[in-house]
């Protein structure tokens, strides 16, 4: 390609039209609308228009007790509900200085990583649908079903788990869960190889993703893009290491990074994270101590006045809860800093001058969950 961007942004000589991609479009994964100013197939300006499923979780937080807001957090990013539960629960624990039993912490880590795998699998399959490959979806969902079955047996729900509680977890796991999880880890490794054969090494996919939508580390920093996006740009930023929480400091895992910064780099980071999550699950299962799963929690929660932050590494990047308490039993302010919001804000700058399918390949690689953006 001889720099299509030059001709696309040359003023005065082009006839442009506006393509309204969405809010109902097969590639938008929900109700994201992108107002694209196009010159032929070249995207001159892609302006995301968001808010179609805005639910004002932050206002809801100011209208219910600390405990009542907990189910909401799993519904922000429905694909990584446990990470969001974790951040909120841990922020309140931080405010109230609640001790969490070690068994509960390990269970949190194990289930969170299972949730990360299931979330990445949805991303992977949905991304391939964006790219026109329909079969991987079914394979990924086959694996994901096994995870969801395991999590459902423990939490009672398949998606919006609300498994974590202030001071621990909802209920203890049984032997069947531990056995099933080990079996899943065993069975999933060969599947990863199959995914590599079927998709990752595929020349068509490589041609579609390599050198598409490069994002520099500097851009990630300026836009606050985190998660696989910043790791795909060569920065080993992971909240699990940068602001260690739970029992992650005790566990041995790597932060996969790729220096290229293109869509393929983000893709490979996602795939490498699946393997790392498996490692964390294995270690968690090996070290899972006995003991209670719920610590001592005051009956009525009234965190002392002040503000408290807690960030976790959700499947899509840094998720932070900023709580402001005025000492009452309902929060004064709940700020939810969601990763997809910051990740999408990159899109307008980076998509300029790309052709439409490449822009969609870039958008997919950002791993967007629309409720996570709109909250």
């Amino acid at each position: 390609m001889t720099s299509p961007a030059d001709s696309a942004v040359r003023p005065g000589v082009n006839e442009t039209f506006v393509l309204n991609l969405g809010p109902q479009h097969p590639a938008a994964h929900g109700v994201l609308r992108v107002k694209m100013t196009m010159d032929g197939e070249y995207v001159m300006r892609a302006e995301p228009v968001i808010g179609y499923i805005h639910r004002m979780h932050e206002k809801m937080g100011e209208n219910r007790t600390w405990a009542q807001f907990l189910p909401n957090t799993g519904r922000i990013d429905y694909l990584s509900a446990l990470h969001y539960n974790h951040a909120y629960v841990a922020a309140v624990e931080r405010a109230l200085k609640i001790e969490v039993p070690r068994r509960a912490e390990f269970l949190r880590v194990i289930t969170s990583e299972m949730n990360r795998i299931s979330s990445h699998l949805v991303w992977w399959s949905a991304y391939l649908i964006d790219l026109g490959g329909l079969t991987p979806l079914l394979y990924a969902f086959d694996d994901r079903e096994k995870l969801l079955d395991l999590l459902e047996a423990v939490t009672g729900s398949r998606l919006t788990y609300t498994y974590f509680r202030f001071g621990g977890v909802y209920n203890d796991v049984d032997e069947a869960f531990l056995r099933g999880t080990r079996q899943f880890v065993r069975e999933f490794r060969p599947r990863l190889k199959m995914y590599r054969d079927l998709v990752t090494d595929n020349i068509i996919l490589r041609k579609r993703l390599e050198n598409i939508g490069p994002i520099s580390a500097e851009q990630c920093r300026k836009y606050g893009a985190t998660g696989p996006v910043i790791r795909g740009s060569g920065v080993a930023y992971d909240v699990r290491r940068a602001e260690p929480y739970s029992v992650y400091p005790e566990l041995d895992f790597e932060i996969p990074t790729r220096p290229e910064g293109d869509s393929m780099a983000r893709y490979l980071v996602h795939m490498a994270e699946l393997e790392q999550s498996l490692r964390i699950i294995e270690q968690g299962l090996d070290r899972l101590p006995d003991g209670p799963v719920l610590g001592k929690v005051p009956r009525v929660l009234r965190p002392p006045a002040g503000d408290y932050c807690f960030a976790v590494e959700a499947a899509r990047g840094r998720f932070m809860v900023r709580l402001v308490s005025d000492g009452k039993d309902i929060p004064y302010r709940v700020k939810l800093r969601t990763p997809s919001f910051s990740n999408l804000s990159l899109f307008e700058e980076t998509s300029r001058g790309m052709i439409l399918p490449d822009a969609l390949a870039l958008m997919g690689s950002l791993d967007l969950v629309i409720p996570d953006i709109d909250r």
Partner: protein
Amino acid sequence: MKASILEVPRGFWSLLVGMRVTLTQFFKPVVTVPYPHKTLPIPARYRGHIELVVDPATGRPLCTACKLCERACPSDCIFVDGAKREGEKKKSVTEYRLDFTKCSLCGSCVEACASDAIRFSKDYNLAGTRKEAYQYDLVQRAAEEAKKP
């Protein structure tokens, strides 16, 4: 130049590898379950909508209408009313309405319950054509359940 020429056979080979993967899957058995002809077992902890637990001794709900669940509910979908029966120390429930259209199945009510009087039902085939169908009268539901052998 050499790399891009080599890329052609390598790329073609990667396509063949991919096709081998799908063909292997082609001859493997189906993994889906033909719902509704067959269904999967529901785990014991499945969180359906709530229902009242019936005391097997008396055949009446255990609920004492303490309204803890009503207060715990984030979505205001529970209404409980109770009255004292003659000769009994505790109140007993007379009305327990669940507005399932608002319920988000979070389970806060079950957790809040001090007397283990509510539990999750295993109903999941919850399609309907009218909104009113989801205003559950749980006392009536419990009474019907108690009648069953």
